[in-house]
């Protein structure tokens, strides 16, 4: 009797010990991974901030205006350049379906 329970307990202790160490190692690995991920998140966030700032810097209207004056020579849209679709005559003999017309009217 005594021997049987001793064997059982020993087995249980071994299993429990093994399981505990297994869990401990897994936790350790997960924690390493978590630390790494947190580090990556922080790095990505900082990178996003830098990229956002850079984009804002590059899309600065003053800069775009300067570049436009150097390379493109675009001018602001004049009132005369703005019209609505119904002001444009359709090609003779070209028929347009109703939905398109309705859209154009908006």
């Amino acid at each position, binding site marked *: 009797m005594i021997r049987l329970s001793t064997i059982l307990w020993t087995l249980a202790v071994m299993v429990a010990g093994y399981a505990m160490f297994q869990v401990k190692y897994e936790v350790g690995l997960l924690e390493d991974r978590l630390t790494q991920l947190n580090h990556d998140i922080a790095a990505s966030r900082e990178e996003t901030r830098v990229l956002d700032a850079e984009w*804002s810097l590059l899309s*600065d209207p003053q800069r775009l205006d300067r570049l436009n004056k150097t390379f493109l020579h675009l001018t602001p849209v004049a*009132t005369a350049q703005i019209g609505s679709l119904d002001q444009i005559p359709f090609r003779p003999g070209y028929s347009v379906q109703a939905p398109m017309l309705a859209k154009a009217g908006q």
Partner: protein
Amino acid sequence: MNPRLNLARDNPCRPRHFRPGRAVDATLEGPAKEALEISHTRLLIAGMLFLLAFAVIGGRLIEVAGFKSGDLRAAHAHPAGPAVARADIVDRNGVLLATTLDTSSLFAVPKDVPDKQDAAAQLASVLPGTSADDIYAKLNSDKGFVWLARQISPRQEMAVIQLGIPGLEFQTEGKRVYPKGDLAAHVLGFAGLDNSGLAGIERSFDDSLKNGAAPVQLSIDVRLQYILQSELARQISDFQALGGTGIIMDVRTGEVLALASLPDFDPNDPGAAKPENLFNRATLGIYEVGSLFKIFSTAMALEDGVSTLSSRYDATKPLEVSGYTIHDDDPQNRWLTVPEIFMYSSNIGEARMAADGGTDRQRDFLGRLGLLSQPSFELPEVGSPLLPHPWRPINTMTIGFGHGISVSPLQVASAASAVVNGGILYPATILKRPDGNPAQGQRVLSEATSVDMRKLMRLVVEQGTGKLAGGSGYLIGGKTGTAEKVVDGGYAHHALISSFLGVFPINDPRYLVLALLDEPHIGTRDGGATGGLIAAPLVRRIVERMAPIVGIQPVDENSPEIRRSLMVGLPSPQGRKLASN
């Protein structure tokens, strides 16, 4: 072995109930007994030690499992919470206006730097703005720690690392960055090296920005801000003005879409700015805005029923009141109807209308429009109006045409928005109103008066002092203002404040554009730099550039329906004759 024979039980040599006596009873004497006792004691001590160790482990187990678990879990739940960096400021479309970036600052531990002369020369070659001599002097100091360069760029940091000089270290610091430079600089303000807000939004929202929570979203639209700022700057340089200010406001919500004050500064380097450049003319500056005030005087007369659109006033000659003479800039020398007074900007007519209304009414009406008290606004730089003390009848008359009272351009924009938008005063705001959360307004005048005022403001552009704002196709209505600057208690004749307040489309007002220039000059005709000449075309250009962005379609200004909707009865030539007789 015979299974039926159990030796332990069936040993015939052993009596059934015999028990051996205890072994220890066997008397041991001398060295043997001593050895046994020593081993006993040792066993006992070892056992106690093990017991103690187990007790400690058990206790720790209970502590960790039972009491510390909450802390541990909390530590794991938000480990990557954002480092407490100052929050961003964005415009109404989410465009970044201010952010905080990690930058490195370079410091040295002088005793660890082996070849100081060489190190200084190398560092000076990669860090612009430093000299080898300065760095050498710093490296030769007795201190354990010297700053060599604060907040350097990542590229410079890389270059320093590649030099591979021992004894150099980097410290990460948050630096406030304003990617749009001087755009909306007066709205944003700036923050100091220690990341505390010192002006503008940075100052008034310092606490919430410091908490690093959600970004602060402004009502400013960067595109409109640039249009306003660049056109204003162009006009200032074309007419050699000292400066200028402009506001674009949504008249339906009170949101400020653009706010410019020139000259301005770069918030990335506020230390380099002159004090006058830091001054916010739009909110902190107060001006006698002159004829712009006729918007409010005329609205008051119409609202209170003191005058109607067909009332006539005597403008045949300058008005003499208690030692003062009130002149017209463009004298018509006849009786004028209210629309004519407004379109020719007659000081005499407005003074008479204001006198008809009386001081109490005027004070009450201007007070309702928020022109007599410091407005509530989200920027810390907000000016209080300058009012006459005491408020005598002569003050009432001069205030009728905008003299003897100083208000900020922001107040004028808010009040004029209420006059044209149907009579609801919305408090001006620099923060974006959440969609579907309309501003809480307060009715300050009737719908009918507002409609009349729109017609009068259109008349100014069609036939009056503001003709240069017309013809854009966006139906601008407005009012010109030309005021002599108050210098040492008197008026300076050649120093003008020229302004124009435009609203478009005036048949269904959406946006207000106010532009004000400080001391513009026109070549030889120094006195002629009026609001109609300087500010009206500026507002027209701003409107033409911003309308496609805000989605306002141009219309045919001469189409019959539009003319009819904005028509004001002016006296016919015969009527004029009758009037002057």
